[in-house]
């Protein structure tokens, strides 16, 4: 269910916050509309840390507050101009500069990406795999409770009892989705659409960054096209990575602009902090490494340490402690280390304490540092593996859904040509000429990300989770491939082949060997959670039934899969006091107790699914007892007269209206 008002509000939040940030740096763009899109980029980047700060001082995460905060400064500026009679309609003319045309091209690429991602996301009624369902609970919690700290429940014994993607997981992604959900009743639509929109806007933000970075709007547009074609650059999978990678571009934009106006430091601080409160450390570490590589390379090339850029990065990390400091305060250092690394570090540290006196402190410290290093560079992860030449070279339509892999034949060749050309053509001027700085930084990014992707094949790993580095490798790959394309176009000129012909040929090759695979992968029907046990048709049937009831209706699944209810757009207060305890022993509750519980909490529907119920309860009660108890409870529910069957899909599930 489309919410046009929420789409407008999203752009108002982003533009308002970005406009305020641009006022600080007095940035005026000569290209029409560019200022608007830069403001959107900065605003989307400001939102995460703003949300965390509001949450820290217990200001409700309410859309009206975000709207007010985003509009305060624009209204002040408008009022001032009105008072000074300086308001004037911008003059419009049909003549366009090259930069304006290139920007229009980037907007077209962004819109085509949005079309592709939304087409795929809405090709099925459910959410894919597991992560998106988890995020849906976080978004629902923020939307209703207007907080991004876990609820404090009696009897809570472990971290992340209810909300996996909030507290200690940095909450920005779920907060954004939650705030948007406050004005968009259908959470399923909200998550699918805005996730796709954020990724697509990232393509446009890349253009804005690349234009400043490479100093050429034509090169930036070509690189944007190549990035949009690379299969490994973000699928429409719903997770915090979509947001955090997108934030890299405005953050780098701000860092790059510091050289022209040091007030960009403040914007840089905010954007880096936002990166650190959007995803759970893994991507922030990698993105910060890439930013530090920029500072290191630029310091050498410019023959002076870039202290302002460095301060912006450090300041951002420090500002993010508003979240992380609170988490350490809440869970303790030991708790946080255990959360990220398991028992290994804590136990290695404690075993050192009881070890020899002479080496106790040093060995404890060194083992801790080593274990932390191993943890942040671990080449493990569910989707990580050794990658072969064909994994890079051939883009496949059948791919990983969360982070697809592959570059494509023509694009891979362009990267190789670009790499060799840049090293050969510029040689030492790469590290000594300001105009080549962006190329040098790009090559270091390429080395870092390529090495990271190959964490399981190279002698040692330098970044955590190789499969989640594919999306980052796409960034330098697009820039280097763009240089390769320009080289081939110039070569063509020498042989009297028009550059436009070479460019067309290359673009056609890129579309055919990368773009088609990316489009097919992103528009095909993706699988969903293992929750559904009956058949591949089952999640579709659930989707059809959930679509038949009003959004946010209270629905109770007998199986403990409340995130399924929430992800389909209905509601279940999984974080409410007493809910988890009731669920824990649900097979021991009679139909009357169940009815009392549901009616007290205003649940309208109860859903039974023999396969699902059995799957999630047998762990506690064992096979036989679960079967026996389920049979008994089902009979009670049927015969109690307290529940009225209203919908059934044979061999799948049955829905009861709670009387």
């Amino acid at each position, binding site marked *: 269910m489309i919410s046009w008002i929420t789409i407008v509000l999203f752009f108002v939040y982003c533009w308002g916050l970005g406009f305020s940030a641009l006022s600080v740096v007095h940035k005026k763009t000569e290209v029409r509309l560019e200022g608007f899109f830069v403001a959107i980029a900065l605003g989307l980047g400001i939102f995460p840390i703003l949300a965390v700060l509001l949450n820290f001082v217990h200001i409700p995460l309410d859309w009206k507050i975000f709207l007010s905060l985003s509009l305060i400064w624009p209204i002040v500026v408008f009022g001032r101009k009105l008072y000074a009679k300086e308001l004037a309609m911008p003059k419009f003319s049909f003549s366009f500069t090259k930069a304006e045309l290139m920007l229009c091209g980037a907007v077209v690429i962004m819109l085509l990406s949005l079309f592709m991602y939304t087409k795929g996301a809405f090709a099925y009624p459910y959410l894919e795999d597991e992560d998106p369902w988890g995020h849906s609970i976080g978004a629902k919690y923020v939307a209703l409770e207007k907080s991004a700290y876990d609820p404090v429940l009696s009897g809570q014994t472990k971290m992340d009892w209810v909300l996996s993607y909030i507290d200690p997981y940095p909450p920005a992604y779920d907060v954004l989705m939650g705030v948007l959900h406050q004005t968009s009743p259908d959470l399923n639509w909200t998550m699918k659409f805005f996730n796709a929109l954020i990724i697509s806007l990232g393509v446009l933000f890349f253009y804005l960054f690349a234009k400043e970075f490479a100093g050429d709007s034509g090169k930036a547009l070509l690189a944007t096209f190549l990035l949009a074609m690379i299969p490994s650059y973000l699928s429409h999978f719903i997770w915090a990575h979509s947001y955090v990678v997108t934030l890299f571009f405005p953050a780098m934009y701000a860092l790059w602009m510091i050289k022209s106006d040091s007030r960009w430091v403040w914007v840089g601080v905010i954007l880096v902090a936002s990166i650190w409160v959007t995803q759970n450390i893994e991507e922030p570490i990698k993105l910060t490494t890439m930013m530090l590589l920029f500072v290191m*390379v630029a310091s*050498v*090339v410019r*023959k002076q340490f870039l202290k302002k850029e460095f301060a912006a990065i450090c300041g951002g990390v420090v500002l993010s402690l508003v979240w992380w400091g609170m988490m350490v305060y809440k869970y303790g250092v030991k708790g946080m280390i255990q959360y990220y690394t398991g028992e290994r570090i804590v136990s290695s540290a404690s075993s050192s304490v009881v070890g020899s006196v002479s080496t106790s402190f040093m060995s404890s410290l060194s083992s801790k540092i080593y274990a932390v290093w191993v943890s942040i560079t671990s080449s*493990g992860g*569910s*989707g*990580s*593996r*050794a*990658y*072969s*030449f*064909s994994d890079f070279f051939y883009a496949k339509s059948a791919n990983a859904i969360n982070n697809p892999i592959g570059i494509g034949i023509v694009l891979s060749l362009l990267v190789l040509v670009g*790499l060799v050309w840049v*090293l050969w053509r510029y*040689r*030492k*001027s*790469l*590290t*000594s000429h300001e105009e080549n700085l962006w190329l*040098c930084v790009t*090559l*270091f990014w390429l*080395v870092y990300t*390529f*090495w990271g992707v*190959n964490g*399981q*094949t*190279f*002698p040692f790993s330098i970044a955590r989770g190789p499969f989640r580095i594919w999306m980052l490798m796409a960034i330098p790959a697009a820039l280097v491939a763009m240089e390769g394309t320009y080289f081939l176009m110039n070569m063509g000129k020498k042989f009297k082949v028009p550059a436009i012909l070479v460019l067309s040929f290359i673009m056609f090759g890129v579309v055919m060997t990368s773009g088609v695979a990316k489009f097919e992968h992103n528009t095909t029907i993706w699988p969903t959670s293992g929750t559904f046990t009956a058949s591949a048709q089952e999640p579709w049937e659930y989707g059809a039934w959930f679509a038949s009831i009003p959004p946010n209706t209270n629905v109770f699944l007998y199986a403990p899969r409340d995130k399924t209810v929430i992800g389909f757009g209905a509601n279940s207060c999984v974080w409410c006091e007493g809910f988890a305890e009731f669920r824990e022993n649900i097979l021991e509750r009679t139909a009357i107790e169940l009815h009392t519980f549901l009616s007290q909490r205003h649940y309208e529907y109860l859903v039974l699914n023999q396969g699902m119920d059995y799957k999630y309860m047998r762990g506690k009660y064992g096979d036989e007892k679960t079967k026996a108890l389920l049979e008994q409870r089902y009979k009670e529910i049927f015969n109690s007269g307290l529940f009225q069957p209203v919908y059934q899909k044979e061999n799948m599930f049955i829905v009861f209206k709670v009387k």
Partner: protein
Amino acid sequence: MEQSQINLPQQVLFYVLCGLVALMVMFSFMASLDKNFSGYEKCVQKKCERKGEAFCQKAREQQNCCAGAGGQLAQDNKGKFTCVFS
């Protein structure tokens, strides 16, 4: 003229960049030698040593090792996972 403008850190940075690119190429070549059954076995063994037998015998981990070695996961007569190379 151009050479004389380059200071030492810039020279070092350039050689570091070239060195890293060379290492990348070398490691990639070395990795390509592991694309066989022994590469698959090594991968599984490494996972077993690191996280235990139950972990490394999971279909997902076996699949990752096999795909990484350039093969296709299959099951033998006893139902045990193996990696097949065409």
